């Protein structure tokens, strides 16, 4: 039997003998139009992988303005640790000629091209790939019939892929039923029909194209927790809820919007409110008003909106008001490349705004970290009564990854606000202690009620023009951020603890950098990798680590600037005054390929082995044919 969903599927019971090939991981790129439900297929694969204890990472692009424009979804799934979305695809599924034209270059030689023969004519005489023609459109129309037309092509393709990679049909069918379960029963039936048709189709056409993930049964559940599968923006949103954030305000902008959409519909379940404001200035102002009532509130945006928030952010520093600002970075300046990734908001996050505004900036390394770093940000904001900026990015925002389900019973934070009466000696801005505001609604034993203010002030919040107090208060605001720095854990360091090169990354470059490190070391270069999640303030003691390597190579997704260094590199050079800190930068709107980082390192490190390896193509997941 080919499929459990409809036993009478043609081609049925007598399955052809299968010569399955074992593989560790595979990169599949689906290319079509956004209305084809490509994201849905990617989502099914990602969640299936999550349920199968496989690691999974996805890479998705959606055009920002056009609905119905070209769209891709790339999923890499496998049984080992998956760190990056994969440099090149092992399999390309092309729905249209334009999909084929735009993406055939991303398929590695020897890879599998699966195309809809109703729409695509591959280049003649191109023998680099195993080309499989499949009438995806007519196959779907025949299977589903009726008025649905070619709706369901995506699920047909999911069936094809399930067959080729011997995926768990039962789990996939369950996912399909869950996904379409709320809709008309025809919808579920049509989806299962399309799936079965796709699953059955390869029977006589793909004879020797079957793969099986290695040791899929033995893949260990690392903590005994089930895995959850979600994108980075969802992980941020749920991290906020888990950290006790109940109020927020925002204004839509790609790629931040989905965070506010989730919070708008989720927070009421927790007694909270998310307000859609008239602009980003109103958003941060409303969020600060929320924080003033006692919790830690959240606002967020992408680069252009973060710029609009700057004046109020300085108020938050001056008034010492806790706040979370999520900035999902995209390509800038201005509207720039709104649906592409970049790490070019670092400087504005750390230094943007007027006046001296020491503030906290954190950057998650992957989707799982989007959840945990958000919880940490809220803890810091509360403890140090300070704004904290979370710098995530477009790639993380939409990428789906599977990770161990957090143990909520252990880590969930109670959002209770302390409105107990404050003692007679309460001061909103004590010079010798961290500020902890008395939220509006709190009784004051002294009968004196505090003022929070953006004017320089004395310990009671009264405005002052005293030069001495301004210096003292500036020092207070600076020293608390230094106190935080002293508590930060040493950053993750892997590879050789001393040697030729230390690769340094921040934010979402963690994954490809880890893979790049392995390649560089395999080529005989003594190398380490340091990844920073706390980008400001930096943890103490980095200079000792830096001094053990000849070159510090910082890979970041922004321009090398007028002086030849990326934004983080510039900061590290200013901070440590070490001329051997150099940059590998790019701004093509895409995440780093492993090979790009390796090539970047080779430009700064003399190594014939490294150069030699660069010529060699990646050992493929799919066996060479």
């Amino acid at each position, binding site marked *: 039997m080919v499929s459990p969903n409809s036993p009478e599927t043609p081609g049925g019971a007598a399955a052809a003998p299968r010569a399955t090939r074992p593989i560790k991981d595979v990169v599949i790129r689906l290319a079509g139009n956004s209305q084809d439900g490509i994201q849905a297929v990617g989502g099914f694969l990602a*969640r299936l992988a999550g*349920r199968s204890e496989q690691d999974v990472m996805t890479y998705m692009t959606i055009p920002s303005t056009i609905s119905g424009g070209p769209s891709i979804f790339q999923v890499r799934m496998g049984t080992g640790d998956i760190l990056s979305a994969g440099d090149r695809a092992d399999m390309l599924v092309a729905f249209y000629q334009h999909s084929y034209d735009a993406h055939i270059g991303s398929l590695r030689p020897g890879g599998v091209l699966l195309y809809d023969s109703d729409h695509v004519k591959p280049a003649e005489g191109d023998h680099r790939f195993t080309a499989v023609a499949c009438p995806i459109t007519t196959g779907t129309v025949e299977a589903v019939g009726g008025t649905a037309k070619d709706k369901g092509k995506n699920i047909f393709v999911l069936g094809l892929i399930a067959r080729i990679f011997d995926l768990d049909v039962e789990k996939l069918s369950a996912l399909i039923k869950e996904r379409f379960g709320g809709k008309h029963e025809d919808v579920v039936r049509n989806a299962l029909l399309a799936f079965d048709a796709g699953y059955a189709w390869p029977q006589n056409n793909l004879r020797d194209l079957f793969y099986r993930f290695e040791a899929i049964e033995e893949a260990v559940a690392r903590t005994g927790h*089930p*895995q*959850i*599968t*979600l994108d980075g923006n*969802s992980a941020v949103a*749920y991290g906020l*809820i*888990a950290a006790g954030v109940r*109020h927020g*305000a925002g204004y839509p902008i790609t790629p931040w919007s989905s965070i506010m959409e989730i919070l708008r519909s*989720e927070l*009421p*379940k*927790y*007694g*909270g*409110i998310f*307000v859609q*404001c*008239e*602009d980003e*200035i*109103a958003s941060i*102002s*409303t969020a*600060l*008003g*929320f*924080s*003033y*009532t*006692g*919790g830690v*509130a959240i606002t967020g945006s992408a680069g252009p909106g973060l710029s609009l928030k700057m004046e*109020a952010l300085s*108020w938050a520093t001056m008034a010492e008001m806790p706040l979370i600002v999520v900035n999902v970075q995209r390509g800038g300046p201005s509207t720039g490349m709104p649906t592409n990734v970049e790490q070019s908001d670092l400087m504005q996050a750390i230094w943007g705004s007027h006046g001296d505004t020491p503030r906290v900036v954190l950057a998650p390394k992957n989707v799982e970290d989007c959840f945990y770093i958000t919880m940490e940000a809220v803890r810091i904001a509360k403890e140090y009564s300070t704004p904290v900026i979370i710098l995530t990015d477009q790639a993380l925002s939409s990428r789906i990854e599977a990770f161990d*389900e957090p143990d*909520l*019973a252990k880590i*969930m934070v109670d959002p209770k606000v302390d409105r107990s009466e404050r003692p*007679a000696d309460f001061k909103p801005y004590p010079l010798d202690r961290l500020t902890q505001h008395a939220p*509006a*609604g*709190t009784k*004051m*034993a*002294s*009968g*004196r*009620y505090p*003022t*929070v*203010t*953006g004017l320089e002030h004395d310990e*009671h919040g*009264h*405005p002052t023009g005293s030069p001495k107090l301004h210096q003292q208060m500036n020092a207070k605001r600076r020293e608390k951020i230094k106190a935080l720095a002293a508590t930060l854990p040493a950053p993750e360091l892997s590879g050789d603890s001393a040697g030729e090169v230390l690769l340094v990354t921040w934010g979402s470059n963690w994954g490809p950098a880890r893979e790049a490190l392995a390649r560089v070391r395999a080529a005989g270069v003594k190398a380490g990798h340091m990844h920073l999640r706390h980008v400001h303030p930096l943890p103490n003691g980095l200079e000792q680590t830096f001094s053990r390597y000849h070159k510090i190579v910082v890979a970041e997704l922004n321009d090398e600037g007028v002086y030849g260094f990326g934004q983080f590199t510039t900061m590290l050079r200013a901070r440590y005054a070490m001329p051997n800190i150099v940059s590998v930068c790019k701004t093509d709107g895409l995440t780093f390929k492993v090979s790009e980082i390796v090539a970047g390192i080779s430009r700064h490190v003399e190594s014939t082995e490294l150069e030699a390896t660069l010529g060699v193509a990646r050992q493929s997941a799919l066996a060479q044919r």
Partner: protein
Amino acid sequence: MSSAVVTPPQPGQPLTKKALVADHPTWCPGCGDFAVLASFYRVLEKLQYPHEKIVTFAGIGCSSRFPYFVNTHGGHFIHGRALPFAAGISLGNDDLHVFVFGGDGDGFSIGGNHLTHTARKNIRITYVIMDNSVYGLTKKQTSPTSPVGFKSKTDPTGAVDQPINPMRTLLNSGATFVARSHATQVNHMTDMMLRAARHDGFSVVEILSECVEFFEGAFDAANPRKGGNWVVIEEKKNDGSPEDAKRHDVTDEVAAFKLASLAWPGAFGVFYENKSRKTKNALEADLITRARERTKGASDLAVLQATFAKLR
């Protein structure tokens, strides 16, 4: 500036002006804003809200120094953005009584868009605009309510741009309580602020408050002591009398627009009051109630666990 000595309120004792004064005002002698402050103490004395539940907030300007002079929870935000901040306070803790004070530049120029949106959302806030038709703090530039011909530092030969009409602007934005008063009419001003505070929704009182330093005599036209004409809006009493037909129906938006369009200095009093529109505070509370009905009042932990279970 020194902080005023305050007697801690004794339980059961009424809230008096003595407990409400804070720093000594820094305004110029003769500034209209003093009278607004004095009136506000009277309003709070009448309202007798629990002391800790009163919040006084402001943006930037001479008038926006207000919160330093009132001993309540409060603060001084950035120029033009006090309303969205106050929206967060009001929605974040529905128990609080939130008052915002500010100038004509703060409210109608840099904060104009916030005024529109806070009004249309009907967020429970009382907003007092101290309109002096000039930028006071920055020393005499043209403001959005400066009349054409007003000589300021930015218009030395006289302002050329058409000023906005505050009452029409507020009505158009959807504010549910709109009133106008004059800082020389203390009883009227107190009454307007009191009614605004008691209104369940976004209530605004525009108070003509003279800047003696930079726009002396700006509002004499409405001041009888200076030979002006003080025209108070007579509100409908619904007593069936023939004179009642001529009185203003505060629920009639069109009539309010007509009143707002009278020639300078116009009329004073309540232009519009809408008691039927729900506040955003109430609408958001409804959303929470409905969401919690769906989750059957499950704990926060259980709700998030259930969400994660669906992501498996």
